[in-house]
């Protein structure tokens, strides 16, 4: 698959076993990218979570966006607990409607919204997890001309979510965490360097 334009947004979904992978990615130093990066990671609701603080590094802030906050290039955004996270016209939209796949935030919801707003300029990455959330959303991204990447199941702590996504999306790339980092590095850092 060749894509004439680099993506304008990266959206990462993960559940059980994904935080370790995300931390590994953040430690490589390839962030910030030249585009906004959204992370949707399943968390329990109604308990205080400090995942944004856990993920943040001294030189790299991870924020939970508020409603109507603009998406900025280089921004690292984490879907807040107990809301779905959508995007439209360059700003975030939060939503408290019913959980999807027993999850709020649901990966499917954010992936679909990103596909609607960015069409072929979206890159979706689905990581480790123990359910099926994200498979349908990845289909949505790919069918609108975007790129889908799935963590290779044999490298995932919980392989159900990647396996489900690969079964429903034969066009998605199956990559190990290291290969995902290389992919992002080649797509953004290298190609966008003057």
């Amino acid at each position, binding site marked *: 698959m060749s894509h004439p334009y680099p993506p304008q947004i990266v959206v990462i979904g993960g559940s059980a076993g994904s935080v370790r992978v995300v931390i590994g990615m953040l430690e490589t130093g390839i962030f910030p990218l030249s585009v906004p990066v959204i992370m949707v990671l399943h968390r329990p609701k109604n308990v*205080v979570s400090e995942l944004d603080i856990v993920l943040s590094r001294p030189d790299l802030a991870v924020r939970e966006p508020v409603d109507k906050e603009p998406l900025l290039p280089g921004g690292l955004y984490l879907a807040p607990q107990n809301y779905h996270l*959508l995007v*439209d016209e360059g700003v975030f939209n*939060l939503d*408290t409607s019913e959980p999807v796949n027993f999850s709020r935030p649901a990966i499917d919801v954010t992936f679909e*919204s990103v596909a*609607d707003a960015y069409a072929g300029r979206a890159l979706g990455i689905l990581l480790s997890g123990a359910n099926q959330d994200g498979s349908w959303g990845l*289909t*949505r991204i790919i069918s609108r001309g975007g790129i889908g990447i799935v963590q290779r199941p044999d490298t995932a702590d919980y392989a159900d979510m990647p396996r489900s996504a690969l079964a429903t999306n034969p066009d998605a790339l199956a990559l190990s965490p290291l290969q995902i980092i290389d992919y992002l590095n080649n797509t953004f850092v290298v190609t966008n360097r003057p």
Partner: protein
Amino acid sequence: MIPTDYALSHSDLDAITTLIRLRYGYDFTNYARASFRRRIQYCMGLAAIDSPQELLFQLTNDPAFFTWLVQSITVNVTEMFRDPPFYATLREKILPRLASYPVIKIWHAGCSTGEEVYSMAILLHEAGLLERCRIYATDLNPANLEKARQGILPLAPMKDYTVNYRQAGGSRAFSAYYTARYDHVIIHKSIRDSILFAQHNLVTDQVFNEFQLVCCRNVLIYFNKELQNQVIRLFHNSLAPLGYLAIGLKESLLYTDLQAQFEVVSAAANIYRRTR
């Protein structure tokens, strides 16, 4: 199951909101497009409607279908003491200040099926203020208001609500506020009777009283910036000088024009106060 086939275009959405506005008087024009599109697609899936044309046909010809749609399109997900730290702040910081008014008028806008306004009434009761309060709870959805008025809730989530109540600083027996029968509970009459439920559409209706506290949590997120500005202005005009405004934890006045008209009382609980 979410339908996979269609993604409504902007012009589809425009046609749908225009028809609803002209035919039924509900104005969804300035709702946040991403979530509005999702709700419409969700409803189309439920009703097994395959195309925007078929949806427009149904809306044109079947008022009962519209009644169902407006019930399903608006997000009616709520819980008692949602975000316990917010209620803890309300209890500790705001209610003692409201206590200085001889009559306390409160507007709970977008009350859905009433869970949050009942939570507020319980706090006011425990602070000894409920008898001095006039609580107006409004929603645009008549079916929600009917449910809210009845005060009958499913039993199953009461366990979670009890945990929320405790986390919000509640120390009494939460079960004293309702009576359980079979798989439902009814909120105690003294709490129910303290609230006046009425239909009010934030988009098309106006100021109807002057309040010391306006509570409107997780409603503004469904509006675009233009409509958010309009509704915040409505709240500003509905508040007494130094009156309080409580919005959802992930909502912000930062991206509205009226930021300067309010001061922050609690950043963590997202409570503001109208400056004079």
